[in-house]
């Protein structure tokens, strides 16, 4: 369940779950007070106060739950939980407009730590699942001593597309590569 919620499509669902109630309530209030009954309401002051506290409580609880539940998908947590003895380090060097990778072929179940650096301008190393969805992106800022790093475990065989998602010049769209993942 949480795997879906913290995917890109899960982000869309959560976004809609927050937006749709807002839209319904906002338009209902505006419609009522602009067209149906546009006179001053005699709602008691306590009613406004209790509504305000309820509303803020809902917002605070939602935000706490969303962020707390996301912790296990954060890179520090993923890295800490990976069995480091089994992690393959892959060095990536990004230059306009290509990726040099120390290894491009893996097997299902392999846990890989991608360590990426840029040699010239801003780039990114974005890995796409064979079904077309974006698995993750890493921003690569030139001049940094520390490489951007992310741990990922391959769970399906296929051809994974690699793209640069930070605009890097007139052939930005051509900066791509592939990674192949074979059956175990």
């Amino acid at each position, binding site marked *: 369940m949480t795997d879906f919620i913290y995917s890109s499509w899960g982000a869309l669902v959560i976004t809609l779950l927050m937006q749709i109630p807002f839209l319904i309530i906002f338009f209902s209030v505006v419609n009522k007070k602009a067209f149906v009954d546009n006179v001053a309401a005699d709602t008691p002051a306590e009613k406004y106060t209790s509504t305000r506290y309820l509303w803020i409580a809902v917002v605070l609880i939602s935000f706490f739950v969303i962020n707390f539940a996301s912790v296990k998908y*954060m890179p520090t947590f993923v890295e800490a939980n990976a069995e480091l003895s089994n992690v393959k380090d892959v060095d990536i060097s990004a230059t306009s407009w290509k990726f040099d990778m120390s290894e491009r072929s893996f097997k299902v179940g392999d846990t890989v730590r991608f360590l990426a650096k840029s040699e010239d301008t801003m780039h990114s190393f974005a890995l796409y699942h064979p079904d077309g969805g974006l698995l993750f992106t890493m921003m690569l800022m030139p001049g940094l001593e520390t490489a951007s790093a992310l741990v990922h475990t391959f769970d399906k065989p296929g051809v994974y597309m690699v793209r640069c998602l930070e605009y890097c010049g007139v052939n930005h*769209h051509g900066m791509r590569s592939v990674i192949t993942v074979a059956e175990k």
Partner: protein
Amino acid sequence: MSVANTLIQKAPFFGRMFQMEESDLNPINSWPALMAMTSFVWLTIAAVLGLSMPAIQLFDLGSHWYYQNITLHGAAMAFPFAFQLMVAMSLHRAGACLGKRADGILVALTYILMNVGALLLTVAVLMGFHVTYTVMFPLPVVGVMTGQWSMSALVIGFTGIAFVLLSMILTYPIKILRMSFFEKKHDELQLAERSLKDPGMIGMIMGVLVLLITGLPLLATASPILLHLYGIIPAEWIAWAVKPVVFEFIFYIFAHNLMEAMAIMIVGAVYATLPLCTADGSRRLYSDKIANLALWILLVTSITSFFHHFFTMYPALPSTFAYHGNIMSFATAIGGALTIFTILATIWKHGLVATPAVFLILGGFVMYILDGVTAIVISNVAWNFKLHGTVWAGGHAMSVLIAISMIWMGMLYYHYPLMTNRTINDSTARKCIKYFFLSFIGLFYTFLVAGAAGMPRRNAAWEGDWLIYGAMLGVFGTILIYSFFLYFSSLRNSKALDF
């Protein structure tokens, strides 16, 4: 006749929207009207360029045109359109509420620097300087080294950017601060008295202070680079400034807070205008205290939430800063939640007069909140790794600019009779609002769905399903342009006020 009025009189097509007689109110009307008119010229350019991008993809016209137009579109939309319109309306509001002149050297400089700067940047882009409106430093320099564009294009482009930055960071904020705290009051110009404790005024002052304070480090970093490009100072003097990590962080502290400042300003503008449109004539918000609290929360939390632009650098961006950015981004939404409550409680308590001005303002506010949700979602570290760099982020930037602009366009409807002694064409304005909202919803959700599908932003190769999203952007973009046309028509076909 003042310089500003003369320029309006002589402007083809757009000038007719702001024709005004010489009057005692010219000191608060003329320059804001000229700025608003000029911003609409840039909007027209930005809109056509925006629509050209799906067309370039669908008809496979080439990446050169795509990157040129995306750079021009973003720059025109963000700075000489949205920002200049904000300058126009805030100067007018400050003048009329405080009884201060909205003209003089700082206003003229703001206008000249913004528009000449935008023109220079346009020239540079047409010379090949395709860096997008976020500059992507050190790309401008790398582009010269790799033969993507010339050194001349770089120098002209950076000069244009410097002009625009000077107007946004120095001349405009200083003028608003001078009007708020120092300049002489003219009773005959004060049409709707407001104190500086009023939420509408506090929002404006917070906004310009954010621009000034977060912008000065950028000016201090960019100025030596420009001076070196002019050959005035040696390369070793700017070694610190051209380090990507230095420039990018200073740039994003400003760029992020530029958007936040514009957002705080429009929240203040909604607080200022909504009470004037209540049915019971009370001219009051539900609670000034809660409104001010919301503004302070927005201000304090937004400043350091900029770290969310760098989450995906992990571990080069330490996790502490990432989590701080995550929490602060969500905390901005507490300010947003209090704002939603204040707006709805005001409408509920006092009723609403259904004018085009208030509907355009509230429509913009709804867009701002819808967009805010997408902004906090992508500010969660876990989601950010799956959405950053996609059109989800690009759609967020576009949506917040449209939302902000729509609120200022609603404010212009409200101020228009005062500015021109004419009243807008009501039926065209109502039609405009419907198309505006329809096109926004279409564009907004297309961007979100395409972003969730992994479609990259600023990428000239739309493939497979991405072309379908692109076609939808083209359709809704066309409707949005039609709504702009209706907006212009509602001003061009205005009627003289009958006294």
